[in-house]
């Protein structure tokens, strides 16, 4: 093994993880994601109450929700349900949708991008024209429209988000694939008689992994925001299933008197989206050798 290849070898994953952990903001993001993940997984054990239970003592005598503090850690909502419990269960919704919708959009985007970038010709043209077309769609409007008309369940919301969000990934993967496809080592493989499948899976795809990881991470942030927005408008995840967005939707009318019902779940959405953005951005620096060492 020559020196050059050894260097390339050491620039691979474990080195990347170490470099990632040296960045304070990335570590902050990872810790936040870890906390939300633990909260979501262990919600049934951590949560002090049942998310759907309407407590008699959860409302004041006038029927107003309780502010944070006391038995109900973060206060109660308009129906006297414990907000802390609902936030914990809401984390489940956010993460399930974040992972499912983003995974699906990543798969669609990667498939479209690789196919268009590798096969060029009419398949590539048709796919990229279609991607251009999707770029011209007002994404949020399309998502609202689809979600509103479908009477959404958790999975439909995830699907709608995936259908709107794959476009960016497809464009990035397309650009990378088409430049990879022109490289000498791919030509050499072809001459050696490698099948198209082998070239795609053994030679092109591994080079795309860093890009897929970066876009996958950044994409979760977009997905979390989109889910929250749809649920806030009342066309996303439907109550009684708690989601951070629909907690705000349900309590919005009362928000001047009980601002915590809007701002606590709002802060949760912001922090989770921020966490994935921070980690994704750090990953981009760490995994892309061209970016390394620049500012």
């Amino acid at each position, binding site marked *: 093994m020559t020196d050059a290849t050894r260097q390339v070898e050491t620039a691979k994953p474990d080195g990347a993880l170490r470099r990632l952990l040296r960045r304070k*903001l990335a570590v902050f993001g990872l810790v936040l994601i870890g906390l939300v993940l633990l909260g979501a997984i262990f919600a049934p054990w951590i949560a002090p109450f049942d998310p759907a239970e309407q407590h008699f003592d959860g409302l004041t005598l006038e029927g107003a929700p309780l502010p944070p503090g006391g038995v109900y850690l973060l206060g109660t909502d308009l129906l006297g349900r414990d907000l802390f419990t609902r936030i914990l269960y809401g984390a489940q919704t956010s993460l399930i949708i974040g992972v499912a919708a983003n995974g699906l959009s990543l798969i669609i985007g990667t498939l479209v991008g690789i196919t268009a970038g590798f096969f060029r010709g009419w398949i590539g043209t048709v796919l990229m024209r*279609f991607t*251009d*077309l999707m*770029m*011209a*769609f*007002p*994404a*949020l*409007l*399309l998502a*609202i*429209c*689809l979600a*509103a*008309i*479908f*009477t959404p369940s958790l999975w439909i919301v995830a699907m709608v988000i995936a259908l709107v969000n794959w476009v960016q990934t497809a464009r990035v993967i397309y650009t990378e694939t088409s430049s990879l496809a022109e490289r000498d080592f791919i030509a050499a493989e072809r001459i050696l008689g490698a099948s198209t499948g082998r070239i795609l899976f053994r030679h092109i795809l591994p080079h795309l992994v860093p890009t897929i990881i970066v876009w996958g991470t950044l994409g979760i*942030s977009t997905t979390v*925001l989109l889910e*929250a*927005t749809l649920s*806030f*408008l009342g*066309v996303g995840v439907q109550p009684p299933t708690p989601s951070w*967005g629909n907690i*705000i939707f349900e309590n*919005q009318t009362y*928000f*001047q008197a009980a*601002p915590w019902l*809007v*701002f606590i779940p*709002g*802060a949760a*959405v*912001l922090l989770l*989206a*921020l966490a994935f*953005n*921070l980690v994704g*951005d750090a990953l981009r620096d760490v995994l892309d050798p061209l970016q390394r060492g620049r*500012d």
Partner: protein
Amino acid sequence: MAGYLLRRLVQSALILLGVSFITYFLLFILPADPVRQIAGRAATAETVANIREQLGLDQPFLVQYSRYLAGLFQGDLGRSYLQRTEVSTLIGARLPATLQLMAAGIATELVLGLSMGVAAALTRGKALDNSLMITSFVTVSAPQFVVSLLLLYVFAVKLGWFPIGGYGTFAHIVLPALTLGLLGSGWYSRMMRSSMVEVLRTDYIRTARAKGLTRARVILRHALPNAVLPVIAMIGIDIGIFMGGIVVVESVFGWPGIGQLAWQAIQRVDIPIIMGVTLVSAAAIVIGNLLADLIAPFIDPRIKLR
């Protein structure tokens, strides 16, 4: 140039045609029934069938779509199912409000984003740079509705400086424009920072310094103009994201623009309005992208349009 322009215009028209087809198709196959909305719950099966026939909704998909398209080519966006008004009239009445908000929002995001980006680039690696970059991460991660509600709560409910919602005076536009401006500023500040950092590294900046020009003059006269243009050209590409924010911000602040029109139409399955607003937004996005590409060679003469 003329050939390029012509080709891009044809492409843009085809994209809009595609958008109209897909939207019409989605609205056609989706389970919600506009006729039920128009007729009301108490309507008999006969009334429902009559309305369906009147609106041509009993026809097969391609017949309906080609009728819509024929109208579209004559500038006719159809008639609202529920309001019995031309969609173009409805959109025309709402468009000025949205354009005002867009202009104010884009101006705010540029002022905030560009100044933050320049400040960060000039203090690279220092505390100010770091905190500005963290701020930019926060703004790109903040949900539009949370920022809207936060500004509304602090500046309208608690401090009472601005009205809670509505339209009309300058005070009405401040909070919605600030929301859009804050949300977009992070994106611009990061681009402005890297563009400025890159320009500050070039030889001509070093030459300007070597000539003995003051730091202020080098930055204002030499670096800034070159760094700012590519960032401003991004407005065209940003329009798509911006249009999304408009729907939410208009609904929170009760701003009577096309975002709110669309949102109401979606809830009532008023398909002609949904189609109209989608097409107008898509046209804005396509025009924005086209303009961004067209001005690119004026900003950077190395770029050739082909």
